């Protein structure tokens, strides 16, 4: 009896391992926690169920910076995954790492998969293409900054209209504070992405020379010479004193303060939608980023955040074929529309945008269109096409450090931004030397 059982078990095991051999595994390292992580797993499972040659295995590697570092470390050790999700901040670093990456346009061509950069939203394509217009990475979860608003709180505080300008946000913050939101009138996650990077683009002001680095690595930071930005940081410092504005950290760890009802106004990524929908127990919406009305031409257009998928170099052609198939699957209008509707990330292709429109999604959830409208608000200028700064991950840390110094009153807004630009320029020069 026992013998029979074990023989059967052996047969079962060997047949299972046989099945596993026939499939090519594709490793996908990602940085999506919580509900969005579950959606990543669903994308992979659906793809795996749709065909039987390839098996995509998603692995959560921590936050954006952690995931990128894990990918870099794995590459150095010779064990890089096939697909690495890298946030937009890491784009310049990845682009410069020529031997480490397999350009997506090249991989798609080799694998014979149809791939047309023109089918993607232009502001997205521009960000991930080289000077020749060839797309080096696969846009996946693009987002932009929007202002998340707790409508119940605004009603309670007697703020009738959702504030559209910064002075109006400050007023609303004061009223909210008086109405009991005394720990935090308004706040911002991703302190530098919101208040330096997108702030500059939204006001059509330069962050760095050479079209914010898109035209060359010899770019220099100039945001400290932007009087509007200095004034803005000065305002935040002033409002931090009585918590009309309250600092919520360098990355998105503070987003929970919106969902919990602690901060009724929170500037953050449009990709926060999925999490807010799951956790916030009040009526909320998204509104465009505020601007200073005295700046001529503002608002311009916002720049993207989020992440793209990079294909790592040095894998066999057969495996790249699977990666290419998976990317075609991800960009199909149905899948892309589902992903963007669930998460709040931008629909990255025109077809997916149209698909969602046809379904009547934006009539049902108007807030989801806010981010798209911000992106296409005006034709992009030198100042709002995007950023391409090497070692931006490290630079953001440095900028945030300096902003923290200003918020704690150790430095003036101008001194903090001067130091941020100076330290940032050192990092840029270091990158320029190693990127040759």
């Amino acid at each position: 009896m026992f013998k029979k059982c074990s023989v059967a078990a052996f047969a079962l095991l060997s047949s299972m391992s046989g099945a596993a051999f026939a499939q090519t595994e594709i490793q996908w390292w990602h940085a999506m926690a919580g509900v969005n992580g579950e959606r990543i797993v669903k994308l992979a499972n659906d793809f795996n169920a749709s065909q039987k040659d390839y098996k995509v295995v998603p692995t959560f590697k921590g936050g954006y910076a952690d995931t990128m570092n894990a990918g870099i470390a794995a590459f150095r050790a010779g064990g890089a995954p096939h697909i690495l999700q890298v946030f937009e901040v890491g784009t310049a670093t990845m682009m410069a790492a020529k031997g480490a990456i397999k350009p997506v346009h090249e991989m798609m061509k080799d694998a014979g998969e149809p791939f047309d950069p023109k089918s993607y939203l232009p502001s997205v394509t521009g960000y991930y293409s080289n000077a020749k217009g060839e797309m080096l990475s696969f846009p996946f979860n693009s987002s932009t900054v929007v202002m998340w608003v707790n409508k119940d709180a605004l009603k309670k505080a007697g703020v009738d209209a959702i504030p559209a300008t910064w002075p109006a946000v400050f007023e609303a913050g004061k009223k909210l504070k008086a109405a009991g939101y005394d720990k935090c009138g308004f706040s911002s996650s991703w302190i530098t992405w919101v208040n330096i990077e997108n702030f500059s683009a939204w006001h059509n002001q330069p962050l760095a020379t050479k079209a914010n680095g898109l035209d060359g690595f010899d770019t220099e930071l100039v945001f400290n010479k932007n009087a509007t930005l200095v004034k803005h940081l000065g305002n935040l410092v002033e409002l931090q004193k009585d918590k009309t504005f309250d600092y919520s950290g360098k990355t998105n760890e503070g987003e929970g303060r919106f969902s919990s009802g602690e901060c009724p106004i929170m500037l953050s990524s449009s990709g926060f939608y999925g999490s807010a929908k799951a956790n916030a127990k009040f009526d909320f919406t998204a509104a465009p980023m505020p601007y200073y009305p005295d700046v001529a031409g503002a608002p311009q257009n916002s720049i993207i955040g989020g992440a793209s998928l990079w294909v790592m170099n040095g894998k066999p052609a057969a495996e790249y074929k699977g990666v290419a198939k998976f990317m075609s699957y991800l960009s199909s209008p149905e899948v892309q529309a589902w992903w963007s509707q669930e998460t709040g990330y931008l629909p990255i292709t025109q077809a997916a945008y149209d698909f969602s429109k046809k379904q009547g999604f934006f009539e049902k959830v108007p807030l989801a269109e806010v981010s798209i409208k911000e992106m296409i608000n005006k034709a992009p200028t030198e100042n709002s096409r995007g950023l391409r700064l090497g070692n931006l991950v490290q630079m953001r840390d440095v900028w945030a450090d300096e902003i923290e110094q200003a918020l704690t009153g150790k430095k003036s807004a101008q001194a903090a931004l001067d130091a941020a630009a100076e330290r940032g320029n050192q990092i840029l020069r270091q990158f320029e030397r190693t990127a040759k």
Partner: protein
Amino acid sequence: MEKRTTFSHKLLPYLLLAPQLFVVLVFFYWPAGQAVFQSFLLQDAFGLSTQFVWFENYAALMQDKTYFHAIWVTVVFSSLVTLFSLSIALLLAVQADKSLRGAGIYKTLLIWPYAVAPVVGGVLWLFMFQPSLGLLAGKLRAYGIDWNPYLNDTHAMLLVVMAAVWKQVSYNFLFFLAGLQAIPKSLIEAAAIDGAHPMKRFWSIIFPLLSPTAFYLLTVNVVYVFFDTFGIIHAVTGGGPAGATTTLVYKVYRDGTAGGDLGLSSAQSVILMGVVIALTAIQFRFIEKKVNY
């Protein structure tokens, strides 16, 4: 007559040592050597282009204000953690050494935190003191203290010190307790008969006899603060606000992985290695002389 087994083979001792030597070689000398080599290089994050730059990374460090800030933070942090973890552990050990009811449970509970990984320990403290969710942070605010480790340097430092001390007290407690139990009871009883009151007995008999343990712990604690507190800092403050809790080892991490600048990061770890070797040597050579063994 006593029966003795002798080994005449000359190779055998080396053979027996080999596994240990191998481990030290592979896990210490090799990576340390690589760090020294890397510290002379200028490399991109992926290691695709490499330039040999001699001491340029060290020169860059000497001009880096944040590096000197990190040195200062490390001095403050290690003094506070060592002072508090040693004194609290000593106090607890002296209490546990008395014949108490339930001393076993008391001792076990005190040893527990040592089994907790630094990151987990850090997260536990964060749960209590996170400004918007923390249970105790809420209490502090109710008392009118504007508790905010995300922006207030002192609060951030306090928080990592508390977490680091909490983690290390167990270890120190164990050693102090063992040290106390090794002190012959007769000495203490003799002093008691001579009329020395408990405080006098502690300072003139117990404490000097405990000094070898205390000295050993001092060394171990300093090394602990230099390296093992990384997980706590990473989980609790991420080195912030504005570098207020960025110790030397945390800066090594930040510049190396987040910054992708392995050359600069290696130069820092080489200096750090030198500092710890020097500290340990000084402690054993000079302080040891004053210690009663």
